[in-house]
């Protein structure tokens, strides 16, 4: 009796690589959306965001205004960068640095007994109060930025698309 040939899946390594690429993409989407959303309210009213910064009682009004002028745009660009897959590792590096600084500020404010709004996602002083959970949330985001920075896969990104296009035509 003739045996029916069994079809074996030939590329388990490729499947694993695709899975990793998808996981990295999910992390990129989560972190990218988080930072884009976080930037919108601050860009809309940088003055109010400056007040949130002043609440930490670490910088003068002028310094707070400079930070409020630049930081939301940096968050937006980095968020869009890792979402679209442009300057991915530079964006991830900046997000890592920002998140570490934000976390240090929250820890510092908690240590000084300040009961203030985080100023992370909105300048609204009644929303997003600082607390220990905020440190945990930031730790997850830091982990996300590290994963993106060290990920070898840049599949599903504009960088990957342009690299493939240029190598295909060149």
């Amino acid at each position: 009796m003739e045996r029916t040939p069994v079809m074996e899946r030939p590329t388990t390594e490729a499947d694993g690589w695709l899975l990793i690429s998808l996981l990295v993409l999910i992390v990129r989407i989560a972190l990218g959306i988080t930072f884009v959303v976080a930037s919108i309210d601050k860009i809309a009213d940088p003055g109010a965001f400056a007040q949130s910064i002043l609440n930490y009682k670490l910088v003068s009004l002028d310094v707070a205004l400079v930070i409020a002028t630049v930081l939301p745009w940096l968050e937006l660009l980095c968020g869009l960068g890792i979402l679209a897959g442009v300057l991915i590792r530079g964006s991830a590096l900046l997000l890592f640095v920002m998140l570490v600084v934000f976390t240090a500020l929250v820890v510092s404010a908690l240590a000084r007994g300040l009961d203030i709004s985080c100023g992370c996602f909105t300048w609204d002083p009644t929303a997003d109060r600082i607390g220990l959970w905020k440190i945990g949330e930031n730790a997850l985001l830091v982990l996300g930025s590290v994963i993106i920075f060290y990920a070898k896969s840049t599949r599903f990104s504009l960088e990957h698309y342009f690299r493939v296009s240029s190598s295909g035509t060149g």
Partner: protein
Amino acid sequence: MLSFRVPLREAAMLVIAAIILGFAYTGFTKRALFAPPPQVAGHSTSAHENASPWVAYQEARRLMDSRAALFIDARPEAEFRFGHIEEAVNIPFDEFESKRDMLASISRDTLIVTYCSGVGCDLASMLASRLRDDGFRNVKTYIGGWNEWSAHQ
């Protein structure tokens, strides 16, 4: 070993782009850093216990609760009608000349707190400057303004 050279270069590009965009946007919309600064010149406030021309939320709340200050809303009447600090009177900066009479009976030593929308708004600090020019010796500006105040309600 992963090189940091390319990511650092990318990060520098992003920082420069953010600086250009941020300053261009706030400069164009005249907000935050580019809002006209308060002008305290002309009348020294050094004689007072707290010489700062700024008032934060806690201090504004205390002054309002104790009725220790006259609050003046410098925003246009339409915005005032949508909501304002209780007991505040509305003297829109643009209508200061026509509404100046409202202050005729007020002592020049009265503590006055001006406010508008928030930090990015300059009407309150400009109105405060006009009031000082008019001889009011104790004028402060609540920098959080209506945005911060209403958020606390």
